[in-house]
């Protein structure tokens, strides 16, 4: 980890910039717009999520055929599939209640701060609190859990 390529972080930063600009442009950084989708008043949101998924899906499918490893890390281009278990359903449902109540998800919340929405600090504070609570509880209840490294 220590001797990563000097361009590793600059590239991640540029990727984040484009990602955040896209969340601003698509209005996903606006909780109102997400809530309007969930109330079926503006069905634009799937164009963002699936549009992004298609673009990244093409890269995920093509790159392993073009190169073996990523230039800045030497890591192989491989699918990192997360194992399915009950947590995906339980966590997904809890996330769903939170997303439906607030209209904001993590990436969009970071971008929302950038577009000037200081009020979103309430949501970001809540997210850290929630992440801390589950981490505290899970560190205690099953400490030796296998490190199923989540790439997200």
């Amino acid at each position, binding site marked *: 980890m220590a001797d990563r390529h000097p361009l590793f972080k600059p590239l991640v930063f540029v990727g*984040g910039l484009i990602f955040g600009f896209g969340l601003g442009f698509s*209005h996903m950084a606006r909780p109102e717009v997400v809530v309007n989708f969930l109330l079926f008043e503006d069905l634009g949101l799937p164009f963002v999520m699936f549009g992004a998924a298609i673009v990244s899906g093409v890269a995920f499918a093509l790159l392993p055929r073009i190169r073996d490893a990523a230039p800045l890390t030497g890591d192989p281009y491989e699918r990192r*599939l997360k194992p399915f278990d009950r947590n995906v359903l339980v966590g997904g449902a809890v996330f769903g209640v939170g997303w439906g109540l607030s209209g904001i998800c*993590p*990436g969009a919340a970071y971008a929302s701060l950038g577009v000037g929405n200081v009020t979103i600090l309430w949501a970001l504070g809540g997210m850290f609190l929630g992440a801390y609570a589950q981490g505290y509880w899970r560190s205690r209840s099953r400490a030796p859990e296998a490190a199923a490294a989540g790439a997200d």
Partner: protein
Amino acid sequence: MATSLVLLQAVAELFPNGISRYAVGGLLVGLGTVVIYVGTGIPAGASTFLESTLSYVSDQSRFQRYVGSRDWRVVFTAGIVLGGLAFAATVQSGVVTTSLYEPGTTGTLYEVAGVTLWATDVQPWRLFFGGILVGIGTRIGKGCTSGHGVCGVGSASKTSLVGVATFLTVAIGTAQVVAALGVSP
């Protein structure tokens, strides 16, 4: 003729802000993901940042497992914040104009140093309590709208498809109930 007009009107009602801002924004979100993946092989999602950043201040084992990635995740998140600001300083401020962008009417616009910024009208208690559940749920459920929704769906991961179907369905139900209870905005 009459039926096609009715159809057109129905579509217009479902997409009061058109689709171009959504599609273009989605392409950019995908492009940001691809830039990182091409260089590093990492399909980056946004919600792990919450736990990896907590590893700076807490030695709980659950957070310490992310020590190796916490630095670049801070950089990724800083990029997302500044990407949002770059959008505000250009398109939102009207410095860059494009017919692909529909400004809409949500929230409140205000100006600081010539940059048009935006603030939500959604009540803080919704953001805070919703945020807590987002923090718990995304971390237990192994991903959020970017990790599952963009990267996972993009790699046709069955786990992610089930995750997306779950949080999308529950979120729709939740928003409908909240609205039916008269909470707005």
